[in-house]
């Protein structure tokens, strides 16, 4: 069902853990499947993401996308990190089964939520960042295209 890359990131998740006194923390959940993802960002004065950690209560795809997404934002600028979509994460994982596409949204949204938290804490506005939804399922459709 899952690609080798997904299995690899599931079995050996990168950046799993917490950052104490993180610059930004974002937690998002999918009410439908009940999964929860939390991202911790450590952002330096130049706006570079120095470190990133995650904790995930979720399916294999959720764990793997958490791991891959954190790898992809590490060392990036805030603006670069914002451009990392769930599509990009999925591609980096060699794809996900159709029913699991929504899981990758969790990672994208959790990063956005952590950045929003960082912006709020620092009283800044990050261009192009919208207030994250608490439940990422809201906008989503039940995929049923026969």
């Amino acid at each position, binding site marked *: 069902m899952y690609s080798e890359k997904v299995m690899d990131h*599931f079995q050996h998740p990168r950046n*799993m853990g917490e950052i104490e006194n993180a610059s930004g923390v974002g937690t998002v959940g*999918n009410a439908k499947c009940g999964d929860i993802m939390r991202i911790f960002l450590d952002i330096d004065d130049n706006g570079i993401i120095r470190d990133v950690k995650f904790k*995930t*209560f979720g*399916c294999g795809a*959720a764990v793997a996308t958490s791991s891959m997404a954190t790898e992809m934002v590490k060392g990036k600028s805030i603006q670069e990190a914002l451009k990392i979509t769930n599509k990009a994460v999925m591609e980096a994982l060699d794809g996900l089964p159709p029913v699991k596409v929504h899981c990758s949204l969790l990672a994208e949204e959790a990063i956005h939520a952590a950045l929003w938290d960082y912006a709020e804490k620092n009283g800044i506005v990050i261009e192009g960042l919208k207030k994250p939804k608490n439940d990422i399922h809201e906008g989503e459709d039940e995929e049923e295209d026969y």
Partner: protein
Amino acid sequence: MKQLIYLDNAATTAARPEVVEAMLPYFSEKYGNPSSVYSLAQESKEAVDAARAAIAEALHAKPEEIYFTAGGSEADNWALVASAEAYEKKGRHIITTKIEHHAVLHTCQYLESRGFEVTYLDVDENGVVDLEELKQAIRPDTILISIMFANNEIGTIEPVEEIGKIAKAHGIPFHTDAVQAFGQVPIDVDALGIDMLSASGHKLNGPKGIGFLYIRRGIKIKSFIHGGAQERKRRAGTENVTGIVGFGKAVEIAVSTMEERTSYERRLRDHLIQRVLSEVPHSRLNGHPSDRLPANANFCFRFIEGESLLMMLDMKGICGSSGSACTSGSLDPSHVLLAIGLPHEIAHGSLRLTLNESNTMEEMDYVVDSIKEIVAQLREMSPLYAD
């Protein structure tokens, strides 16, 4: 240890070698269509009849009350849809429970869309229906009671005999989904007052793609699959001869070995449950502590999610399943675990292990050790546990 420990026998089972052997001649040698006139076809017909007789005997039913289907789902659909259509002049109300298999639940929803009314009975914290609630739910326009024999997730066995009595007292046909129970516990349709019963071959070491609906003589339901005159004109389609033969063989063996087999499985299963509950913190057993299928164990582990748990067990060569049906297309937590009162987060972290006779005590110990390790690992990763 990378040898497979298969603990998902409620999902499906391996066909027994004797079953496959019994089927083999009917693929390419005795391949005749049982409805045909010539002798080749008579061999197929006799094989089908023999399987039907063996299955009838297992249920204390008559051979002509057994109607082969493509599996448990078709049998459930048939029982519900055709009962609704047959008795709709009498009424349009059906009683079932909240913990039925989707083959019953989704068919009930379908019938609701056709103007039928369905009462979904609650269950208690062990998954047992309340007989008083059942009695109160009965109305003059109730045309069917469909309550499963044993639940596929948590293994709870329902009070079928009492349900049968209540149904009979009110003159309402009683259907039971016995897909999980058949072959695991003795069933006597007469003693239990069952009017219709669904079963499926692949749940008892028979082949996939074959099942049956028992229909008591006198129950006036029509066909669900319309067409040819097979199965006494009630179920159209060229008979799945190999499937039927394999099913018959599997039932014969399941019934003749039941006592010894299930007491062995029960011993293993009880050891597994006892060790998990005492050694894994924040764990609980789902389903009735004693009135449950002999080979079923179902746990919840707080703070972790089912699919991840299954994937990590798989890496250790252990096959189990979870109520969290992410992969099967629905993301909702198990309706059964919700019905017994578990909150969403906890319902997500469930693990069902269903044994068979080839499992060993050593395997159980290895499984418990693996669960302990994996659960700890996943909790480490969980934002809920950290809280």
